[in-house]
C-alpha cells in the first residue's frame, strides 16, 4: 500500500517518516499524475495559504476533491485541517472544502502561544496523546456527518467525517503513531 503525502510546502517529510515507522511507503505528491495508485492522502502542516495557492497553480484541488468524493481517505494536520474545512473564517483562500466544518486559523494566537499538551482522544484508547499545537487552528463548529473526536479547552481539535480526518495538532512531530495508525485503519476499512 502506498499513501500520498502532499509535498507543496510544509512538514511532509515528517509524515513520510511516521508512515515508514508503520512499514508504509509514503509518496511525495506534487503533480496530479502522482495521485495514481495511492490508497490515501495526507495533507501536512505548513502554511495553508501557500499550499492552497500551489494546489490551484498545479491543478491539484479538483483531482483531490474527486478522489475524496470517490471515497479515498484524506487526513489533514493543521494547515491540512484548514484546507479540508468548508468554511474558513475571514478568508477566501483556496481550499478543498470537503468537511462540514467552520475553521478558525491561528485560533490559539501567534507563535508565542503555540503549546504542547496531553490530550484525551477516546478513539485512540485511554492513554492521553501528547499533542503539539503550532499557530494551530480549531474547528469552531462541525455539522453531521462530521463528528468531534477530541477537544482542548472546549475547542474542537480533531474531527472525522467518513473518509476525512482532521487534526489541529501535529502527530508527525512526536513518536506516538496512534493517529497515523487510526488513519491506516480508515483506509483498510474503506
Amino acid at each position, binding site marked *: 500500500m502506498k499513501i500520498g503525502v502532499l509535498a507543496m510546502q510544509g512538514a511532509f517529510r515528517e509524515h513520510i517518516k511516521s508512515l515508514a515507522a508503520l512499514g508504509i511507503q509514503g509518496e511525495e505528491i*506534487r503533480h496530479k499524475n502522482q495521485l495514481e495508485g495511492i490508497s490515501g492522502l495526507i495533507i501536512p502542516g505548513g502554511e495553508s*495559504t*501557500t499550499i492552497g495557492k500551489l494546489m490551484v497553480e*498545479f491543478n491539484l484541488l479538483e483531482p483531490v476533491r474527486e478522489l475524496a468524493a470517490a471515497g479515498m481517505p484524506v487526513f489533514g494536520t493543521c494547515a491540512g485541517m484548514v484546507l479540508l474545512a468548508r468554511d474558513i473564517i475571514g478568508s477566501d483562500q483556496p481550499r478543498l472544502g470537503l468537511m462540514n466544518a467552520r475553521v478558525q486559523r491561528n485560533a490559539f494566537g501567534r*507563535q*508565542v502561544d503555540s503549546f504542547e*499538551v496531553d490530550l484525551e482522544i477516546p478513539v485512540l484508547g485511554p492513554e492521553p496523546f501528547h499533542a503539539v499545537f503550532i499557530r494551530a487552528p480549531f474547528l469552531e463548529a462541525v455539522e453531521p456527518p462530521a463528528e468531534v473526536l477530541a477537544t482542548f479547552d472546549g475547542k474542537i481539535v480533531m474531527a472525522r467525517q467518513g473518509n476525512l480526518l482532521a487534526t489541529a495538532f*501535529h502527530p508527525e512531530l512526536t513518536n506516538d503513531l496512534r493517529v497515523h495508525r487510526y488513519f491506516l485503519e480508515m483506509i483498510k476499512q474503506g
Partner: protein
Amino acid sequence: MGGIKMAAAEKGTWTVKKGLAEMLKGGVIMDVTTPEQAKIAEEAGACAVMALERVPADIRAAGGVARMADPTVILRIMDAVSIPVMAKARIGHFVEAQILEALGVDYIDESEVLTPADEEFHINKHEFKVPFVCGARNLGEALRRIGEGAAMIRTKGEPGTGNVVEAVRHMRRVMSEIRRLQNLPDEELMTFAKDIQAPYELVKQVKELGRLPVVNFAAGGIATPADAALMMQLGSDGIFVGSGIFKSSDPARRARAIVAATTHFREPEVLAEVSRDLGEAMPGLEIANIRQEERMQERGW
C-alpha cells in the same frame, strides 16, 4: 470530555520553537517593508514574511548603523497578513529581542544584516519563548548558534547583493562538513568538535542524524527561481529572499515564480516555465568588489 486529569499546556518549548520552522520547510520567506508588500508576498504564496524598515540592498547603500525596525512598521505588517511574521534584532542585542517578543512576532532573526550590538557574544536564545533563526557559514557556527538556542539556521550568503555565490559556498560547506563527520569514528568526535568550535553533544547528534538538528534555510543573494532551486538541490530546507523580490521590476510575478521553483526544485521543465518573462532581476554586486570589512557575512562569532 473530562475524566482523566490532564497536564497543563506548555508554551515556548523547544518542540514548538523548532516545530514552526518545520512547518516553514519547502517555503519562501520574503523581506517586506510595508503592509502592501506583505500582502503581495502572502498573495504570491510566501510561507512567512520578514518585517524590515529597509531591505538589505538599501541598508548596504545607506551605510551607518542598521537597527531593529520601528515597532509600528512591524505591527502594521502583522496586522496585514495571516502568515507568520519574523523580524530582525542586532547580534547580541537582547533588548531588541525582548521588544520583538513583546510585540508578538513569530520568529526573531538575530541577523548580521543589522549592525552588531556585541562583538563577542550572541543572544542567549534559550531565555525566550519566541524562536530564533541565525545565520551560519559553516557547521561550527551553526552548532554554536543552536547551542545558544537557535531553533532554525540559515546560510548567511552575502545579503543585498543578488549574488548567490556566497550562499552556495556556505550551504556546500555545511553539507560537506556533515558528510565528513558521518564518516568519523566516535573517538575522533571530541577533536572534531574542538576544531570546528562546536558543542560536543551537538556534534554527536549531527553524526547520528546525518543533518543539522534544526531546519536549515538558504539566505543571502537569492534573486531568481533558478537560484532558489539551486539552493534546494544543494540541500536547503527552504528559502529566504531579501532584496531579490522588491528590488526587481515585477515583484508579484517574481515572488510567485520563486515559490513555485522552491516546491518543484527538481523539475527543470517547471523551472523553465516559471522563469519566463519575469522582467529585470535586482541589480547584482560582485563580491570581490565589496571590501572585507563591509561584508555582512563576517559579522557573528
